[in-house]
């Protein structure tokens, strides 16, 4: 590491004692680079074994990496915590201004421990840390909270504002943390952990320069990366239509989960395609700080008031592939306006829209199958495509008027344990599925991924490339997934956006690391990737994860995937092999 680089400074904040201190953790950054690598170690250090996710001792760890602020596309913050949704490793990534703001404030990581008795927001401006009273903000939506904090804090343009909505306050296990209104620390409940600490918002800002190893070589490297980022095809795809460009291809191959995965295609998919949203609704495009690609697409939803036709409200709603899957095809909604209405509401509550969509899809099928007593529906009609029912149900995930909504608020795993319908409860390790029914690799990927995310190992891409050519033997498939997950730990430790994975190949990473004073060999880099994966799995096993005890939802065998029917025996062989391998690679300590 370079002298004067603040990357190794870790800010520890204790919300119980209302204290903070900065500790130099060069040891961690030298060994694990930053981001996920450092966060995993801090989690192992800070989170006592076996605690409840809402125990005040559960730490919230936010980590960035050495390339942030130096090179384009290094734009992510990794959050780690114990997840209230999976009861295990919680890891979530977000961009926006978060990574650069934390780096410019002079930190490589922030650790928040303890819990406050009264609502507060934490403000970090460089070396200054303030805990502010958030009593008046409690109960306010994501949007309004963001506005109030914005108006009360300095650092405009140089700050990140993370906050929770009502779902986080009520500690719904799939509540997320919103970042700059349009990005999220999504999935597996970071918002609920914020809520358990009475932490309504966190604002971080700063402005500084960063040292580099060789100024000339640095500028050259920068130009090269910038050039590639602005001219490559892949980047153009994300830039033009955003991730929503994947709707039509996924639907065409039959890999777009529809009506709780009763099908892999939705009729009239073109109406909710990236193309249709761009044409009919795109209102603005945004980028994360220091990203020339700018994949964030915001729809303008312009609607008259019911009784005042000449009063309009225009809501700006960020859309991506995943929300379109979860609140669109999964619920049988192919009317973009209705999809945006639902997404807007769920976002403002601060619920993870992917989990919320899968939960509502399960609920619809459970109602259809007569599993839910009518009086528990509280007058709400749940049927495919019926967005008004879904809006009403989403509201009830918060107000919880009946045991049914109380159960839904805990996710499909729990709800199906109460009402039945386990076969079509689409979750892995407690986390609801993402939108890829591409074949066995996708599902094995969700199951095996340390955080049960499709981004852990990109199984969906293995399906569409390798498996499309020939059925890879289960053992080889598992090896491929684990190898990819190891490699991805490097990107998430540098905190380079996964969309830039082709650009930041090993050679580019090594050259980048050299400029931030962390020269190393390709072998060492690969080794670090595996070490990080191992550390994450060590945490998982310590907290009781047992691969063989996991259930694979029966539904995935009933509905043809993009590669045709998924063979149950194949899956079982793969899982048995993976369980063995994980036991060997990450022995419980």
């Amino acid at each position, binding site marked *: 590491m370079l002298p004067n680089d603040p990357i190794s400074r870790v800010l520890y904040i204790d919300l119980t004692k209302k204290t903070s201190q900065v500790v130099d953790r060069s040891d961690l950054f030298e060994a694990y680079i930053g981001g996920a690598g450092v966060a995993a170690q801090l989690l192992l250090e800070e989170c006592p074994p076996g605690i409840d996710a809402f125990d005040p001792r559960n730490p919230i760890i936010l980590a960035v990496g050495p390339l942030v602020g130096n090179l384009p596309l290094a734009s992510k913050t990794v959050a780690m915590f114990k997840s209230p949704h999976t009861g295990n490793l919680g890891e979530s990534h977000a961009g926006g201004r978060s990574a650069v703001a934390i780096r410019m404030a002079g930190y490589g990581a922030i650790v928040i421990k303890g819990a406050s008795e009264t609502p507060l927001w934490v403000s970090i401006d460089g070396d200054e840390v303030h805990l502010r009273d958030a009593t008046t903000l409690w109960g306010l939506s994501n949007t309004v909270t963001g506005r109030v904090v914005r108006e009360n804090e300095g650092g405009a343009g140089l700050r990140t504002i993370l906050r929770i909505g009502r779902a986080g306050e009520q500690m719904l296990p799939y509540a997320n943390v919103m970042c700059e209104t349009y990005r999220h620390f999504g999935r597996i409940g970071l918002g609920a952990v914020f809520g358990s600490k009475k932490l309504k918002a966190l604002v971080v800002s700063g402005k500084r*320069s960063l040292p580099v190893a060789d100024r000339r070589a640095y500028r050259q490297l920068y130009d090269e990366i910038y050039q590639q980022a602005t001219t490559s095809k892949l980047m153009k795809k994300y830039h033009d239509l955003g991730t929503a460009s994947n709707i039509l291809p996924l639907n065409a191959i039959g890999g777009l989960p529809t009506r709780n995965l009763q099908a892999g295609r939705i009729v009239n998919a073109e109406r909710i395609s990236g193309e249709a949203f761009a044409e009919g609704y795109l209102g603005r495009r945004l*980028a994360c700080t220091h990203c020339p690609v700018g994949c964030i697409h915001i729809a303008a939803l312009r609607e008259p008031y019911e009784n005042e036709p000449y009063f309009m409200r225009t809501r700006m709603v960020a859309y991506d592939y995943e929300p379109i899957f979860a609140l669109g095809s999964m619920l049988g909604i192919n009317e973009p306006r209705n999809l945006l209405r639902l997404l807007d509401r769920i976002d403002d509550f601060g619920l993870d829209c992917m989990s919320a969509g899968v939960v509502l899809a399960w609920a619809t099928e459970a109602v259809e199958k007569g599993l839910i007593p009518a009086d528990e529906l509280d007058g709400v009609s749940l049927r495919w495509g019926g967005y008004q029912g879904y809006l009403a149900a989403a509201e009830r995930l918060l107000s919880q008027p009946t045991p049914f909504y109380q159960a839904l608020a805990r996710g499909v795993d729990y709800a199906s344990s109460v009402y039945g319908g386990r076969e079509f409860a689409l979750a892995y390790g407690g986390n609801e599925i993402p939108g890829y029914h591409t074949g066995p690799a996708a599902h094995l990927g969700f199951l095996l991924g340390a955080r049960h995310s499709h981004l852990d190992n990109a199984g969906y891409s293995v399906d569409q490339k390798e498996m499309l050519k020939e059925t890879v033997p289960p053992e080889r498939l598992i090896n491929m997934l684990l190898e990819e997950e190891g490699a991805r730990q490097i990107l998430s430790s540098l905190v380079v956006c996964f969309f830039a994975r082709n650009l930041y190949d090993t050679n580019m990473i090594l050259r980048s690391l050299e400029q931030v004073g962390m020269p190393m060999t390709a072998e060492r880099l690969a080794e670090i990737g595996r070490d990080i994966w191992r550390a994450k799995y060590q945490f998982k096993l310590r907290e009781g994860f047992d691969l063989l005890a996991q259930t694979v939802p029966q539904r995935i065998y009933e509905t043809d995937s993009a590669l045709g029917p998924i063979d149950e025996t194949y899956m079982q062989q793969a899982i048995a092999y993976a369980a063995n391998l994980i036991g060997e690679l990450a022995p419980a300590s």
Partner: protein
Amino acid sequence: MRLSVVDTELCVGCQCCMFACARRSGLGGIASSAITVRSMGGMEKGFKVIVCRACDDPPCARACPTGALTPKPGGGVRLNASKCIGCGRCAQACVLGAVQWDDDVNKPSICIQCGYCVSFCPHGVLAMEDK
């Protein structure tokens, strides 16, 4: 030639221009950036892109008590850092807020109208124009 903002509606808020400006020093980060990009109060409303307009009779130079800022022929100002006492009056004098502050050295970051940022704006928001 002076730096101008072509159309803020094209700005995605990536701040690549700010990083470019700061990188002229050869360093990373944004401490010395002479450009500011920030939202108009929520990103949904778009962005303000604040650059120095290279005024003919620059108020910032007039406000400087030590003569550290002097008007340049053709517009804009030049900073003599050794004369600057870091009082901040130049920054207060610019109604656009185009005089940025470098906290690392406690002196203003003055745009020299070099146009380096222009080639790092991916969306053509910035351009050099004849005055």
